């Protein structure tokens, strides 16, 4: 696959991933911060602040886990390579 196309594909996949993450984050923060009482239509101060923190935490966690995942998969690859050269 030529590099231009690969880059374009990567960009598209990233956009898709972001959209999915956004939806999941919205759902999660909704469950965590907005109790299902709905006595009034406005967001209370507590709920608003909770949402701000929730978004920050979610994005932080997302980044951390992404890095850890990459680490682990690199390690995995190394191990497999060693195993392959070992048995060769």
């Amino acid at each position: 696959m030529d590099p231009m196309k690969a880059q374009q594909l990567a960009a598209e996949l990233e956009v898709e991933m972001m959209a999915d993450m956004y939806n999941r984050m919205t759902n999660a923060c909704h469950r965590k911060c907005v109790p299902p009482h709905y006595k009034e239509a406005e967001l209370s101060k507590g709920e608003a602040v909770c949402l701000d923190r929730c978004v920050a935490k979610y994005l932080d966690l997302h980044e951390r886990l992404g890095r850890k995942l990459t680490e682990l998969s690199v390690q995995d690859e190394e191990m497999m390579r060693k195993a392959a050269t070992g048995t060769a």
Partner: protein
Amino acid sequence: MGIAFCVSPFYITCPSEAVGGLAIQYRSLSLPVWTHKKSLTTMAAQVTEADQMKQFREFLGTYNRLTENCFMDCVKDFTTREVKPEETSCSESCLQKYLKMTQRISMRFQEYHIQQNEALAAKAGLLGQPR
């Protein structure tokens, strides 16, 4: 009824007539920074039909999720077919709250990405400087 619904955080403009002709002017959200990557590759300044379709699809998704959510939280009485007035008012509050919530989340999300981009740009700027 002919007003356009834009709830999605992913698009710059809200088309004045949504595909299919649905309706409530709810101009709430603007484009998060990272989606510029995609628009740069297309190099198009105007909203294409594909974009409109995407936006409308997004809207329908939100509509569905919102309905399910408010139903689960507000409707508790199944001894009757009628929707009780408490359930109606609860679901109206639920709708308002949900939309406000998504607005706020979208705002914070964008802020975060703007920060990230600035940090990256600053880093790139520092690296690019001649010694």
